[in-house]
């Protein structure tokens, strides 16, 4: 961290030579900055151009992971039968996954997958919520890599569980040839099912999450950039527009908090559904 802070300071020092410092930029405007895809490809901190390229989004992921581990480590090491406020809040989250996702979808069998699904849910919440936290300002899941890894984790999990339970043939028959359909229909149904099971499920999981976070970030940046422009640069009636864009930014921050939780819920819920489908006797 020390190195990184030094880097910020030196970056500011370097910037100030040619143009305004970071702080000056914060309270002024030099035209409207439309958000672009470049938002998601910030300059590298190190390893530029290599597979180890580490930029601020990677740093945010590390911070979110450390926060998640720290909070739950503290909660776990202080856990008592009678919960205090902190433990009560933590327990509420754990109970939410258990009571709202795993049990309704998977029933008693879901108990085995509760740790996996809870981890998934909490990780996604923490990686998503960084999108509205000042100084972080972008969701760890807004680059496709992390959602993709999590989706592949679910993908491998449900394929493995399905094959483990039914055997390779049994699982393929179960998922590609759903019973209770006239034989010729399989010509249509089987390719669709195959596409579903092997490609669409993990792909949609990853894309839904990443797309939501990308869109959310762009909306926020758009509102903030517009507010900056109207507040510091525009004059007269146009300056009043900053109130409107600020209100929109405020609304979208609240909306993004909701989306962060909702997308974690949706991702975890669908993972539970896919696991359940893989384990079902017939469907």
């Amino acid at each position, binding site marked *: 961290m020390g190195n990184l802070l030094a880097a910020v300071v030196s970056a500011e020092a370097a910037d100030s030579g040619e143009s305004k410092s970071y702080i000056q*930029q914060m309270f002024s405007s030099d035209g409207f900055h439309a958000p672009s895809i470049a938002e998601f490809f910030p300059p590298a901190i190190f390893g530029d151009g290599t597979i180890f390229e580490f930029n601020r989004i990677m740093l945010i992921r590390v911070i979110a992971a450390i926060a998640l581990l720290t909070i739950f480590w503290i909660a776990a090491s202080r856990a008592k039968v009678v919960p205090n406020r902190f433990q009560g809040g933590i327990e509420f989250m754990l109970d939410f996954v258990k009571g709202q996702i795993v049990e309704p979808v998977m029933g008693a069998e879901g108990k085995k997958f509760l740790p996996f699904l809870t981890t998934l849910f909490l990780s996604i919440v923490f990686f998503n919520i960084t999108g509205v936290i000042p100084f972080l300002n972008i969701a760890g899941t807004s680059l496709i890599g992390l959602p993709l890894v999590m989706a592949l984790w679910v993908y491998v999990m449900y394929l493995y569980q399905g094959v483990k339970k039914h055997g390779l043939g049994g699982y393929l028959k179960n998922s590609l040839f759903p019973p209770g359909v006239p034989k010729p229909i399989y010509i249509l149904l089987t390719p669709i099912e195959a596409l579903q099971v092997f490609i669409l499920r993990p792909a949609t999981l990853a894309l839904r999450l990443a797309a939501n976070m990308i869109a959310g970030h762009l909306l926020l940046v758009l509102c903030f950039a517009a507010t*900056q422009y109207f507040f510091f640069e525009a004059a007269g009636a146009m300056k009043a527009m900053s109130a409107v864009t600020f209100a929109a930014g405020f609304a979208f921050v609240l909306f993004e908090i909701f989306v962060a939780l909702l997308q974690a819920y949706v991702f975890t819920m669908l993972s539970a559904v896919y696991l359940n489908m893989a384990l079902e006797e017939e469907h």
Partner: protein
Amino acid sequence: MTAQTLLMAAEEHGAETEGNIILPAPYDLLWSIVIFTIIAVVFARVILPKLQKVLDERAELIQGGIEKAEKAQAEAAAALEEYTAQLTEARAEAARIREDARVEAAQILAEARRRAGTDAERIVETAQRQIDAERHQAVVSLRTEVGTLATDLASRIVGESLADDARQQRVIDAFLTDLESTVKAEG
């Protein structure tokens, strides 16, 4: 990480992204801080206190429930102990009563025996005394009658009046004494 590379990175990404490697775009940071502060204040002042109240109540409820259960358990244990003690006491009491009854029965028996013995002795004594008295009476009356009869008989045989009382009495006494000594010697 030198300033030069940073600058190069900044130039690469152009004016659109100001090129700070750690921080978000300045406007992004500024307005998110403003909004986040508002949200944080609302949470700290309004929402969290309410939630904390619920959490505190829940903790109290659980604590109360546990305490109640512990109390009930302690009470049950105490009741069991008391019951056991009472049972032991009752058993001891019953044993004591049985023992008392046996002792009392033995006492009653001994008393009855003693009284019966005394009664028997008394009856025997009374009877003895009566016998003695009767014998004495018989002896007295016999002495008189036997004397008279013998005197009469002797008078007739001897033909001589033995009416002289003094002499008569001496003779009778002598005779009887003689007779008694004979009887004693024989018996």
